[in-house]
């Protein structure tokens, strides 16, 4: 599946879309990036007078690139794949954070597939800043399926 088609299938929109582009995707993993615009809503409150990207948002960014984009690709590779009624659910995360990400920074996420079985995708993810420093890393898992298939 082509990268632009994958991005079109993402079930998010601005204010909660944390994927700008993917540079590489295959059955083993994905690499993508996101630019944190200064006008994002959560910077007004996290923190008062000191905007820093919340760790949960960094985790979400890792999950959107590392699980959802990769999951869409993997589903599209299956025989008779149908992605018209995509359903995703985040099921688990274990993250560690090393550096802050400030408004206006761009981050790069690398995700490596651990397994994709019975619609559950588990990955090891790492996020880097533009200086190639490790921002956070961890393991993420989620369910992704086309809901027309039933369960």
């Amino acid at each position, binding site marked *: 599946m082509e990268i632009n088609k994958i991005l079109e299938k993402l079930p998010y929109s601005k204010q909660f879309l944390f994927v700008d582009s993917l540079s590489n995707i295959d059955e083993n993993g994905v690499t993508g990036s996101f630019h944190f615009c200064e006008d994002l809503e959560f910077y007004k409150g996290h923190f008062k007078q000191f905007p820093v990207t919340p760790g949960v948002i960094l985790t979400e960014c890792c999950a959107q690139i590392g699980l959802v984009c990769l999951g869409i690709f993997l589903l599209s590779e299956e025989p008779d794949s149908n992605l018209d009624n995509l359903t995703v659910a985040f099921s*688990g995360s274990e993250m560690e954070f090393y550096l802050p990400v400030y408004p206006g920074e761009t981050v790069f996420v690398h995700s490596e597939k651990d397994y994709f079985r*019975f619609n559950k995708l588990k990955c090891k993810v790492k996020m880097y800043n533009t200086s190639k420093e490790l921002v956070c890393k961890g393991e993420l898992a*989620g*369910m992704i399926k086309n809901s027309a298939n039933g369960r």
Partner: protein
Amino acid sequence: MKEEKYYQQLKGIVKPYLPEDISVDDISPDSHFINELNINSANLVDIVLDVEDAFEITLENDDMDEMQTVNDAMAIINKKRSSKEQ
């Protein structure tokens, strides 16, 4: 009995995925994994992967669809084990 041994083994696999309010003693052959044991679909996949490792078998998507109760899991394990041992 081999089946009893498999059943105890399966209970041991399920145990770490049970929510706090459900104990391993609540598991019966008729227990429905999702509706009665409150195991979510993501953890059910983990149980299947652990079952595959423990019993050295491979489950297909159809097996996963059929595996609703502990009994269903036992039937799949017994079927796969016996075809492997023949």
